């Protein structure tokens, strides 16, 4: 391929933006139709999630939560895309994508139990179309192709959406999932949250491709790069992708350009080892909450008072959810055996007896 062709491809993937860093509308024509209440609800969710992230980090440090992957900085990317979904759409989250499944309907205390490593965290409430957060990076992408094909074959007016990171876009399953969904014209939306780092490895080391969005070309599907710190832009492109998928126009790959202010996970990762403070400062200026707050304040839809109410509400909810998590009965080996199969095979029947006896001592 000539350099010229490569440049022509890359030119197709300019970053889509609606709000700039000052909260000013720079793309009026693309403004999504959202009521004042919906705009406020979006802000409410972002503030709530920021507080939850701060609390989760603190609770993790106190040993009251286990595995936790911070989300501060990615609120627009996560919640803007989720806001475009129908309540019966399927979400196949990665391990960082807890806010999306909580706002889809997973009770907060279950998210906490999942973090601690308790099966009750994964007991998805009836009628809630989500999978448990996926630890194997890329597996959710191929599974999404299957869920989307299933929805199409069952004649449902719903889509499957999945999330991975910039590092995840290097996996084989990432390509296979998009390619399968494309080949079956299945109603899937693939979101890559490009926060520029896969643990310590910068996105430039993942691929020579200038954008991740252009990887859609390999699957023959639509690809778009969006400002992932701009909640309105993320919402707009996801909504459009959803409509296209349901109209039978195929899947979409959305790359959200975002940033995580915290470490990769709370398991000892120290971002100062691989990230400059200049880069952190640059992205702090792009904070999705700051710009959306300005936008809403200019419209007279937001106030410090309103924000404080949400902060208090979030703190109360978290406290309540932690209490509920604390009150969940401890897991037993017999519980684990019981969930393995519908009908226990002979080896597990034996072991069930063994552990039932142990547990009754």
């Amino acid at each position: 391929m000539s350099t010229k062709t490569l440049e022509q491809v890359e030119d197709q993937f300019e970053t889509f933006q609606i709000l700039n860093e000052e909260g000013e509308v720079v793309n009026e024509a693309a403004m999504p139709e959202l009521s004042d209440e919906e705009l406020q609800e979006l802000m409410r969710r972002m503030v709530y999630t920021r507080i939850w992230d701060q609390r989760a980090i603190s609770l993790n440090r106190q040993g009251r939560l286990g595995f936790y992957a911070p989300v501060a900085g990615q609120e627009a990317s996560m919640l803007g895309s989720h806001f475009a979904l129908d309540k019966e759409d399927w979400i196949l989250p990665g391990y960082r994508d807890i806010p999306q499944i909580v706002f889809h309907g997973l009770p907060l205390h279950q998210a906490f139990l999942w973090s601690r490593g308790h099966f009750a965290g994964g007991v998805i409430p009836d009628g809630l179309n989500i999978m448990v957060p996926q630890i194997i990076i890329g597996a959710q992408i191929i599974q999404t192709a299957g869920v989307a094909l299933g929805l199409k074959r069952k004649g449902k007016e719903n889509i499957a959406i999945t999330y991975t990171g910039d590092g995840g876009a290097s996996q084989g399953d990432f390509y296979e999932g998009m390619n399968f969904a494309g080949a079956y014209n299945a109603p899937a939306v693939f979101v890559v949250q490009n926060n520029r780092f896969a643990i310590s490895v910068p996105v430039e080391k993942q691929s020579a491709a200038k954008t991740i969005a252009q990887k859609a070309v390999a699957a023959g599907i639509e690809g778009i790069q969006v400002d992932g710190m701009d909640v309105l832009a993320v919402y707009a492109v996801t909504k459009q992708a959803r409509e296209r998928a349901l109209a039978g126009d195929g899947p979409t790959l959305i790359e959200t350009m975002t940033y995580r202010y915290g470490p990769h996970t709370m398991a000892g990762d120290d971002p100062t080892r691989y990230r400059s403070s200049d880069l952190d400062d640059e992205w702090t200026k792009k904070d999705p909450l700051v710009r959306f707050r300005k936008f809403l304040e200019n419209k007279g839809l937001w106030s410090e008072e309103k924000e404080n109410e949400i902060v208090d509400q979030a703190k109360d909810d978290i406290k309540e959810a932690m209490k509920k998590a604390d009150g969940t009965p401890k897991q037993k080996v017999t519980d684990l055996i019981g969930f393995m199969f519908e009908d226990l095979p002979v080896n597990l029947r034996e072991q069930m007896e063994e552990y039932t006896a142990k547990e009754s001592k």
Partner: protein
Amino acid sequence: MAQMTMIQAITDAMRNELKNNEDVLVFGEDVGQNGGVFRATEGLQKEFGEERVFDTPLAESGIGGLAIGLGLTGFRPVMEVQFFGFVFEVFDSVAGQMNRLRYRTGGKQHAPITVRSPFGGGVKTPEMHADSLEGLMAQTPGLKVVIPSTPYDAKGLLISAIRDNDPVVYLEHMKLYRSFRGEVPEEEYTIPLGKADIKREGKDLTIVTYGAMVHASLKAAEELEKDGIDVEVIDLMTISPLDIDTIITSVEKTNRAIVVQEAQKQAGIAANVVAEITERAILSLEAPVLRVTAPDTIYPFAAVEDDWLPDHTEIVEKAKTVVNF
């Protein structure tokens, strides 16, 4: 009753289940219009349509993900991996995902998936076609692993596998596909998973085996009979979970056992059978339980297959060692 080859019995089982349940879907590489590289799905797309029996892109991992996703939306996927040597491409979906779906959701989601795949030696296939990798599957909690050796068993076990609400890996030995015909009822029937079958009753020695080695063992039993050794041959049919009762009852009767597998000594499931017998019936044993297996090399180049694969003469030899211990 009809006379069928094993592959015809397999096709018949899938046809039965496609008819029986509209959520059953059959898919994989070349399983649609082509009817499968071994004709296992011959005529099924024509009969049931492209929505039910369809081709996939050439990517095993994607096929596994497709099956999991379709299972979540209410379908009952029967996915094919063209040759089981290719399972490494889809190992995560089979051994890292579908096997644990029920567990990781405390029973709320499950994977009613059947993974069909041919394997096995003796037909001079190229690399990575014939490898016996059932041991890897048998070591994976959350999977059941089925290996039929006759047309009758193949049909009943496959119908059971498809109806099972948890993932079943169903391995089809290529050498057994068309090597003989057997009586197969035309109507539907099931054979329970996890149950072994005594293919030959005997009182002097138990041979525990599965797959193509069932036939090598039956041939060995005939030869041993000439020497006055009366052999009982147990066809495991399901290698995970093992039918412990049938194995132990037999060993307690014969007091001697060997385990026969086509896989390498360090692979397969023979070591597991030996361990179970040792734990449960050591006081019945007159001799150690020995194994007949392939050597611990990579699967052989096609031209040397016959020297490498275990056969009935090795079984006869090992049986005599145990009887004369």
